[in-house]
């Protein structure tokens, strides 16, 4: 199988990005973008279509089986995991455009700095302050909420997320649902408040994020659950106090 890889290169922070086209051939019908990048880097002798030597292409990978989120990038303009992108499935007219995710600062080539995601989780105080148990009654939600890869694909397509903004997007809403499912009484108020502030309030619920999630997390289900706990409960309490919903 032959494909042309158009890769957006950037040699270092602040340097000018440029496109590089590489003709790549493989006998493995199931080969992936990750495998192609590995091959090209390992060979060290590729030249591009303009006969320039191809220097080492920086990208991040770890598990090679779509379980760690490291290799997220834009593949034909769609945020995907490189290890889960078969060449034969993602090519368009024989061409695959590969770019770094756009919502995060580029470090080098396809490597972006996603530390804002970790910062957001910290800002939202995503942890249990005391003993907390996810028993059978909430096990499914806690399980689903534990599955987020922190890959960032959802943030890439979210119209409301930008790095540094107050809305933290699905990459935070999903892990938050684990916390919300089993939150101890003492932490409830704070957790719900943080969730409303950084999750519920900024989300337009278009669910653009759902279809890109490589882990196939049922985001809608989690949203409904978390909202029921953190948003509608509050209203119920208000109702109890005699205020109108």
């Amino acid at each position: 199988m032959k494909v042309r890889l158009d890769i957006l290169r950037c040699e270092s922070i602040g340097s000018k990005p440029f496109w590089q086209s590489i003709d790549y051939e493989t006998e493995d019908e199931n080969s992936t973008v990750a495998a192609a990048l590995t091959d090209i880097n390992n060979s060290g002798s590729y030249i591009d279509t303009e006969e320039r030597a191809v220097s080492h292409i920086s990208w991040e990978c770890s598990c090679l089986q779509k379980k760690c989120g490291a290799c997220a990038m834009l593949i034909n303009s769609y945020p995907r995991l490189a290890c889960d992108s078969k060449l034969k499935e993602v090519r368009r007219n024989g061409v695959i455009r590969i770019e770094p995710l756009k919502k995060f600062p580029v470090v080098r080539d396809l490597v972006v700095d996603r530390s804002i995601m970790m910062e957001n989780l910290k800002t939202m105080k995503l942890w249990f302050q005391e003993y907390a148990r996810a028993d059978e009654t909430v096990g499914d939600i806690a399980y689903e909420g534990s599955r987020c890869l922190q890959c960032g694909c959802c943030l890439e397509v979210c119209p409301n997320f930008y790095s540094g903004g107050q809305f933290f997007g699905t990459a935070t809403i999903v892990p938050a649902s684990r916390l919300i499912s089993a939150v101890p009484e003492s932490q409830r108020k704070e957790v719900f408040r943080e969730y409303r502030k950084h999750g519920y309030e900024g989300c337009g619920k278009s669910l653009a994020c759902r279809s890109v999630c490589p882990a196939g997390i049922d985001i809608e289900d989690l949203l409904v659950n978390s909202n029921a706990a953190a948003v509608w409960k509050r209203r119920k309490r208000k109702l109890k106090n005699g205020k109108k919903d």
Partner: protein
Amino acid sequence: MSRINIIGAGLAGLSAAIELAENGIASRLVSLQPSERAQSVLAEGGINGAINTMGENDEAENHFNDTLKGGVFMADPNAVENLTYGAPEIIRWLEGIGVPFNMENGDIILRNFGGQKKKRTAYARSSTGKIIMSAVIDEARKYEASGLIYRMPHHEFLRLITENGECKGVRIHDCYSNDKNSVIDLYGPVILCSGGLNGLFPGMTTGTTQNSGDVTAAVFSQGVLLGNPEMVQYHPTTIGITGKRCLVTEAARGEGGRLYIMRNGEKWYFMEEKYPELKNLMPRDVVAREMYFVRRREDCEDKVYLDMTGLDGKVWSRKLSDLREELIKYLGEDPKTTPINVKEGIHYFMGGIDTDEDHRTNLPGLFAAGECTCQYHGANRLGGNSMLGAIFGGKKAARTIISSGIYTGEDTAEPDEKITAEPFSEPASPILIERISEILLAGLGIVRNEEGLRKSLSELETLESEREYCQREKSRFRLAEAMLRGALERRESRGAHYREDYPDKNEEYRKATVAELKGGRVNISFRTLPERRKK
């Protein structure tokens, strides 16, 4: 203030950092990539602990016996006792930080796993590692917010800083820095939690590409001892996918999956016939070896199948849903209706950095925990004991530091963090990595012999004499040599180390293999194991 420097942010590193933080001690958590991408998230089947929730009268002593026996009596019994008796507390700790283990009637349920007669493996469907990691990462985040854990999640370990035979700190590089040569020196005690040696076998293991083996190679070159380097675990059930071996969790057999091969046109459930008690759930070394041999029999076809078609629907939906999805995706076959073709693949490294039961290495100031060490598993690791060993080991190493007074909390004499710009060794060349890997694979297969090992050693030597190599490459040669020499010197068969020229185990070799670099050469010796302490 002097901080503890932890290299690696998988289960071992995170657990060490949390334990230190709970005791008010600050640490830096250095890793190539964030915890979410560590190999620990790949663990599938579960984690062992005799919490006895299945009405089988299980107790820690059984876990102790199974672990020691599974490792063919080559592990330190006192360390194994600490581990297995500490296991229930670890499982309950995980439960208490919100890990959604599979539960019934309000308590954790357990599944069968290889080499263990009782149900002892707690799990979250077949993504246990990911689910545990999410909770442990959140727990670490709590201390990160309070300043007790400082993450350095895109930083590469380069070397130890040593002085008069003591470890004083580490030199690292920020992979996100524009300056390719910049290094950062961190002072203070060091805990290595850098995972297994996957990078010695690129594309051939079930693990992550991140664990290159460079850390172990570098510290070996700096005088740190290795233990049992010849012990490499082949997992019986893996499938080939692009770029790696993909694990089919042992839970598939724990839940009732059966192995067979076609013999004279009929299905032969060879494990059940040969091992009527544990059947398909014999320890991994045994299963892998049996598969290796039946595939080579004249009357058999050369493919072994894992038959899960007899599992009931609830098992698929509640316990193995993720596995089924994965197999359908990679094989285009539904394991619920079609037996799948499986093969042995490199999965775990029992050997590694030599530590005592308190996780000290031979260098004062240097500790190690998790898969990068040789601790707990002897000649073969039982499924479900590795996550346990990583969490327990990380915590134990931290406790050793806390109780030994090595951490004073006072300012160190040197500046705490020194940034210098000096060129450091380039990454090893991929072509060299590939060639060393071929040499190692030839010598360190499931079945080994003197001739093959000598041949590999001499090929390694020839390769090394071909040209000048950078420091990182030189260290890789030494590590490879230690593994081959360990296998050569161990003239017996034990656990994962099977020598067809010495097919029996030999009590004389019921010792730990110790590899040391002396005057540029690898020296192998055998150390008598301690007796189990009287309680």
